[in-house]
């Protein structure tokens, strides 16, 4: 995406949160993985473009939704921003510093400011640690509240903030329900007072009645601490509810980005349109009057993606030129970006 596009995205982000430059700016982020030819082979057989030239910004206090189907690169994008992966190219500018250029020490300091909440509240908590110790661990590592007594007090505080009874501190994860465990994961993410949290499918594993509790908690925390979220999810209803803006990914590329209500009311990219049509709405009368058109085909393999626009084999609007030219994001309306020359 061009520098011009970046500038316009910045202005959109600042509308959501008027305090100056964005907290996070991702510029032309690209992450390629190489796949070995066989289990024992060292020969590099193929390259997977997990993330390909992705740019966006997130303002202070803003929640940006990142949606798409399995394998579209949304989780890899989140992992690159946290520098759990070293991106192939591109820039990740967080609080004015490019994370790709920092040395280990400086990066570790920055990591206090950015945290992550994972999808699975079962596998993301160490089963041998008490949940109080799990929440206290990041503070121990980063040397915040080095005295045990202070740390325990802070953990108790975090428990209450996340709607957990501080008495639960001495429990093990298996003694808690899925919803409670997810609250523990949230308390751990908050323990270092971060500015920015990557929520990677943070509510997907929860049942609807519990999911609503956790969604409300995430919203309350964002408002209370002016947090920014990159909210990675495949559930579009949750994303509309929780996010100010939404970016749609397909096979490693951003295809559309707009304010949440604008995107859902007026999707422009044919992929976004098909994605929204596929989501059933919990209302039989609404469903009766919806067109149930089904998008043909499946997501192609990222090892050998289609040339030109990656969506062209499934696209109802595709023409000959879509096979050759990679469409760039362009702003069709203020703050509404689409990577399709045919709309």
């Amino acid at each position, binding site marked *: 995406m061009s520098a011009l596009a970046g500038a316009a995205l910045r202005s959109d982000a600042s509308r959501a949160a008027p305090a100056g430059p964005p907290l996070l700016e991702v510029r032309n982020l690209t992450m390629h993985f190489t796949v070995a030819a066989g289990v024992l082979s060292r020969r590099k057989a193929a390259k997977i473009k997990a993330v390909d030239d992705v740019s966006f910004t997130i303002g202070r206090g803003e929640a940006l939704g990142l949606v798409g189907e399995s394998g579209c690169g949304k989780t890899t994008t989140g992992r690159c921003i946290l520098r759990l992966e070293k991106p192939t190219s591109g820039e990740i500018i967080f609080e004015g510093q490019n994370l790709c250029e920092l040395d280990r020490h400086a990066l570790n300091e920055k990591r206090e400011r950015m945290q992550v909440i994972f999808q699975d509240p079962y596998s993301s908590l160490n089963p041998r640690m008490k949940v109080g110790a799990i929440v206290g661990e990041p503070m121990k590592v980063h040397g915040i509240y080095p005295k045990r007594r202070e740390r325990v007090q802070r953990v108790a505080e975090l428990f209450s903030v996340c709607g957990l009874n501080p008495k639960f501190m001495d429990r093990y994860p298996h003694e808690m329900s899925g919803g409670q465990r997810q609250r523990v994961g949230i308390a751990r993410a908050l323990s270092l007072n971060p500015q920015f949290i990557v929520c990677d499918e943070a509510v997907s594993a929860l*049942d609807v009645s519990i999911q609503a509790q956790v*969604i409300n908690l995430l919203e309350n925390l964002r408002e209370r601490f002016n947090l920014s979220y990159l909210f990675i999810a495949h559930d579009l209803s949750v994303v*509309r509810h929780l996010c100010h803006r939404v970016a749609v990914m397909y096979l490693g590329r951003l295809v559309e980005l707009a304010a949440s209500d604008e995107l859902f009311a007026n999707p422009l990219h044919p992929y976004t349109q098909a994605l929204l049509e*596929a989501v059933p*709405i919990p209302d039989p009368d609404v469903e009766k009057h919806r067109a149930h058109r*089904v998008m043909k085909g*499946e997501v192609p393999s990222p090892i050998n993606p289609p040339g030109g626009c990656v969506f062209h084999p499934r696209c109802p609007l595709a023409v000959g030129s879509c096979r050759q030219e990679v469409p760039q994001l362009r702003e069709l309306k203020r703050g509404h970006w689409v990577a399709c020359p045919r709309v």
Partner: protein
Amino acid sequence: MSALLEVENLRTQFDTSAGTVRAVDGISYTVNEGETVGIVGESGCGKSVGALSVLRLIPDPPGRIASGSIRFAGSNLLTLSEAEIRKVRGGQIGMVFQEPMTSLNPVLTIGLQLCETMEIHLELSPQEAQARAIELLDMVGISEPARRLQQYPHHLSGGMRQRVMIAIALSCKPKLIIADEPTTALDVTIQAQILELMKNLTKRFGVALIIITHNLGVVARYADRVNVMYAGRIVESGTASDVYHRPVHPYTLGLLRSVPRMDRPRGGRLIPIDGQPPDLTREIEGCAYRPRCSFAVERCAREAPPIEEVANGHASACFEKARLERLLKEAS
């Protein structure tokens, strides 16, 4: 329409070290010929166990069907011999499970798994079975069906495997298909493909369908009638339109309020249901939903409310259903 499946007062329990789990605690429902019935509820509410009990697929021990009757096309499935019930499974009643990877045998070809069912139930010759298998794969939208017969499940994507499962379920011309979370593991566009396919094929062949899901949207889109389950019981049942627009059980209302809607602008907080579902190893006195319910009265602690009709075909297991109905009417 006549009743094809009549489940009456079914109780399925599991003996575990922690005590007896009353996974299904006295559910009754019917499925008419050619109709689609949704069974909706959260994890652990007994929706899958209830459906597996219909085919007596509950591992015994630790599980057992403690009481009840299941009448299907004239016979009580609970009193059939093992040989007789095997004819029903995969024959008159087909099944589609959630995990298309684990429900297909990874070391057998697609063709073998499709043909085996038909050779057993329809007594087709291998050649006849193969010809029909190709026809079926074509019908469920799998390209190059003849070549696919030679392939193994790992050659196919999740969506394609679920299409194979549907082909197997339909292969013996069943009267009923039970689909247990058929699309939960799939991406949303593939989910839409699979559900549309199931709807079209069940309509075309007049097959009744039970869809078990936690997804309220899937039920709204596809089911004619809905049973809402909570803690092993059916708490509300009725047509999809009645249940979604005029709920008469506080749990149904709570569920509908706690899901974010993609078709509505952002605004306000969701209204979650407080607390958590009960532990089913403990004896529940009174209504299982009482600790989370804002309509609960003193009586709810003592007696479990029976499921009763409030209007034609619309039933609720709540003592306070009249008050709930009145309040919702006033609110709208």
